[in-house]
C-alpha cells in the first residue's frame, strides 16, 4: 500500500517535471518561425534549447519506464489501447530530435527550412497529443473486462481537445518566456510580446478547463473528500497570474519560474484527482486501472524506490549544474561559432 502510493506520487512528479522542462523546448520549437526572422536569430533560439532538450526528454522516457516497472498492467494497456495516438507522439518526437540535430550540420536554405518545419511539427504534436492523452485519462477510457472500446477518433472529444489546447498554450507561454530569458535584442522583445499576448488565451483555456473538468470528469470527487488538496489548483491559478504579473513587468526569469510552477501544479491537480486510479474506466468503474490492481510486487517497488532515492537526486544535481553552466544569454550568436 505504502509503496504503491509512493510510486503514484513519483509517477506524477516525473510527468510534471517532464512537462515543466521539455515544455519550454516544445514552446520554443513552435515559436521559432515567429520569434526569429533571420538565420542568426534562429541560431540564438536554437542554442537556447540546444544543450537541454535531450536531457529534458529523458524525463518522459523515465516516466514511461517508471510506469512499466511500477505499474506494468497500466503500461501495457495504456500503450496498446492508445496505439495510434502514441505512434503519432513517437513519430513527432523522433522528428523533433532529428530536426534540432541535423538542421545546422549542412548548409542550404532548403535543408534548413525543411528541418525548421520538422521542428515546428515535432514540437506542436507532442504538446497537443500529451494534452489530449491526459484529458482522456482524466475522463476515463471506454474499457471494461472485454478490453478497449474506443479508437483514435474517440480520443478527439471536446474535453480531450480542450486539454490538448491547454497544454499547447501552456508550453507556448513557457517557451516564449524561456526565449525572453535566454536571448537579447529583437528576439527577446518579440518573445516577451508573444508570451504576454498568448497568456490571455491561456487564461481562457485554463478557466474553461477548470469548469469543464467538473462536468466531464470525476476528478473533483477527491477534492470534496480532502479539501486540503484544493491548495494544488489554487497554487496553479496563483502561479498563472504571477506569470503575467512578472512578464508584463519585464521580469522574465521570475515569470518563467512562475510558469514552471503553473505547469507542475496543473499536472498535480489532475493527478491528485485521479488517485488511486491511473486510468479510470468511463464505462465500467470496476475495470479501472488503479495503483493497487496494476502494480508490481512490493519487492520490485522497494528495489525501484531505492534506485529512485539514490539516483534521482544525483540526476537533479547534475542537470541543475548543466543549467548553471549555460545560464548566459544567447546574444551575439553571429560572433560565436555556436553548434547550431
Amino acid at each position: 500500500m505504502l509503496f504503491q502510493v509512493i510510486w503514484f506520487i513519483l509517477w506524477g512528479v516525473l510527468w510534471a517535471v517532464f512537462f515543466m522542462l521539455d515544455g519550454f523546448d516544445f514552446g520554443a520549437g513552435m515559436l521559432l518561425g515567429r520569434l526569429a526572422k533571420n538565420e542568426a536569430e534562429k541560431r540564438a533560439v536554437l542554442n537556447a534549447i540546444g544543450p537541454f532538450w535531450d536531457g529534458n526528454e529523458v524525463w518522459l522516457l523515465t516516466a514511461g519506464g517508471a510506469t512499466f516497472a511500477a505499474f506494468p498492467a497500466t503500461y501495457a494497456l495504456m500503450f496498446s489501447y492508445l496505439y495510434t495516438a502514441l505512434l503519432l507522439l513517437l513519430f513527432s518526437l523522433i522528428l523533433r530530435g532529428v530536426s534540432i540535430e541535423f538542421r545546422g550540420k549542412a548548409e542550404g536554405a532548403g535543408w534548413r527550412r525543411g528541418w525548421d518545419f520538422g521542428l515546428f511539427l515535432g514540437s506542436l504534436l507532442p504538446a497537443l497529443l500529451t494534452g489530449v492523452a491526459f484529458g482522456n485519462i482524466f475522463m476515463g477510457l471506454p474499457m471494461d473486462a472485454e478490453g478497449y472500446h474506443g479508437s483514435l477518433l474517440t480520443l478527439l472529444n471536446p474535453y480531450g481537445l480542450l486539454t490538448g489546447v491547454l497544454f499547447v498554450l501552456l508550453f507556448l507561454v513557457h517557451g516564449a518566456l524561456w526565449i525572453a530569458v535566454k536571448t537579447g535584442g529583437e528576439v527577446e522583445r518579440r518573445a516577451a510580446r508573444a508570451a504576454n499576448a498568448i497568456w490571455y488565451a491561456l487564461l481562457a483555456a485554463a478557466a474553461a478547463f477548470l469548469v469543464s473538468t467538473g462536468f466531464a470528469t470525476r476528478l473533483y470527487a477527491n477534492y470534496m473528500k480532502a479539501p486540503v488538496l484544493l491548495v494544488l489548483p489554487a497554487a496553479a491559478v496563483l502561479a498563472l497570474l504571477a506569470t503575467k504579473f512578472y512578464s508584463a513587468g519585464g521580469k522574465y526569469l521570475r515569470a518563467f519560474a512562475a510558469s514552471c510552477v503553473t505547469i507542475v501544479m496543473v499536472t498535480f491537480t489532475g493527478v491528485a484527482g485521479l488517485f488511486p486510479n491511473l486510468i479510470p474506466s468511463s464505462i465500467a468503474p470496476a475495470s479501472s486501472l488503479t495503483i493497487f490492481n496494476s502494480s508490481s510486487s512490493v519487492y520490485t517497488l522497494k528495489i525501484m524506490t531505492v534506485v529512485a532515492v539514490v539516483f534521482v537526486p544525483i540526476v537533479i544535481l547534475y542537470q541543475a549544474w548543466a543549467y548553471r553552466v549555460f545560464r548566459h544569454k544567447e546574444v551575439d550568436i553571429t560572433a560565436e561559432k555556436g553548434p547550431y
Partner: protein
Amino acid sequence: MDTLALSRLQFAVTSMFHFIFVPLTLGLSIMVAWMETRHLRTGDGIYLRMARFWGKLFLINFALGVVTGITMEFQFGMNWAEYSKYVGDIFGAPLAIEATVAFFLESTFIGVWVFGWDKVSPRMHAVSIWLVAVATNLSALWILLANGWMQHPVGYVIRKGRAEMVDFLAVVTNSYGWLKFLHTVLSGYTIAAFFVMGISAWHILKKGKTDFFMRSFRAGAAFGLIASILVVLAGDFHASEVAESQPAKFAAIESLWTTKSDCSYNLICFPSVRNERNSVEALKIPGLLSFLAFGRTSARITGLKDIPKDLRPPVMGTFLSFRVMIMLGFLFIILSVIAFVLSGRAGLEKRRLFLRIMLYALPLPYIAAQLGWIVAEVGRQPWIVYGVLKTSDAVSKAVSAAQVWTSLAGFTLLYGALAAADIYLLAKTARKGPEPELPAAAGHNKSGKEA
C-alpha cells in the same frame, strides 16, 4: 499477415534500425574521449582536431540512436502488451534503471560537450565526453541484462498469473546478460575501429599521407586489434553459455541434428531442414564442437531431432547468420593485425590495395552485429522468454493487424527518410575532413562570455 507476424516484423525492423546507430556510439564515444584526453595530456593540437572531427561524425550518428531508442521503449507496451503485463514486474525494472542511471547522464553531458567548448574548463570538457561514453555503455549493460533475462530467466517465481521478481541480485548478476553485454559492446568497439580506419583509409587514398588520418588510422588499428580479439573471445564464452542454457538455439546455430557425444565440428556444413540432416558436411575436426560447447571433447550435445518440432527455432536463418558472423569475426582479427602492423611502420600510404580493402570493410562489422542479433533473437524462438512465455502469447490483444500495417508502413517511410538524411550528412562530413589547423588550443579558450 496477422497482428503477431506484423508485430514481429515491426520489432525486427525498428530494433535492427536502432542497432545500426547504437554500436558506433558505444565505441566512438570512447575513441573521441581518448583523443580529447591525449590533447589535454600532450597539448598537441592534432588530437583536438581529431576529437572535433570524429566527434562531429559521432553526433550525427548519436542523434539517430537516441530518437530510434524512444521507439524501443514504447513498443513493448504498444505491441507486446501481454508480454509487458506478464513480465513487467521484472523486465520493467532494468528499463527504468537504464533511463535513470544512463539516459540522464548521457543526454545531459552530451549537451555540455557540444555547447561547452568555451563554457567549462578543458578538463571538465574531457570529463563530459568520458561520462557520455560511460553512460552509453552503462545503458547497454542494463538493456542487455533485461534481454539476458528474456534469454535465461532467473530470480523469479510465477505468482498471480505473472512472473514476479524474487531475487534482484540474480537478475543483475545473470551471467548470460553479462556475457551478452561484453560481446555486444566489443562488437560496437570493433565497428567504431573499422569506421575510423575506413574513413581514414579513404582520405589517405585520396590525398596521400596526412598526419591527421595516419594517426587516426593508427588509433583505429590499435582499438580494433584489442576489440576484434576480445569480441571473438567473449563470443566464444557466450556460445558456451548458450549450449548450457539454450540447447535448441545451440543445436540450430551448429545445425546439429542427432544427439551425441564427441561431437566433431564441420568446417563446411549446410543444413537440409526438410530432411532433418545436413546435406553437406566436410572437413571434420573431431571432438571440437563438444570442446567448444562444454570444454570437454567427450561432452554430449542435444540434437535438433530430440527437440519437439514446435520448440525448434528456424534452423536455416539461425545457422547461416551464425556461420557468417563467425567468419567475419575472424576476418576482423586478420585485418586488424595487418592494419596494426602496417600502420606502425612507414609507408602505409603506399599500400593502396590494403587501404581500399579497409575502406570496403567498413560496413562488415555492422553486418556481423546485425547477424549476431538474428542469432540471438530468431534462435530463441518460439520463446519470447526462454521456457516461460511464447512469442505468440505475448502480442497485444487490443491492437489490430490494420493498426500494425499502418505503423509498420509509417516506420519504414520515416526511418527510410532518416537513414537517407543521415547517410547524406555522414558522407558529406566525412569527405570534408577535419577543420584546418587551429592556433594552439584555440578550441579551449576560457574567454566564454557570461551574462
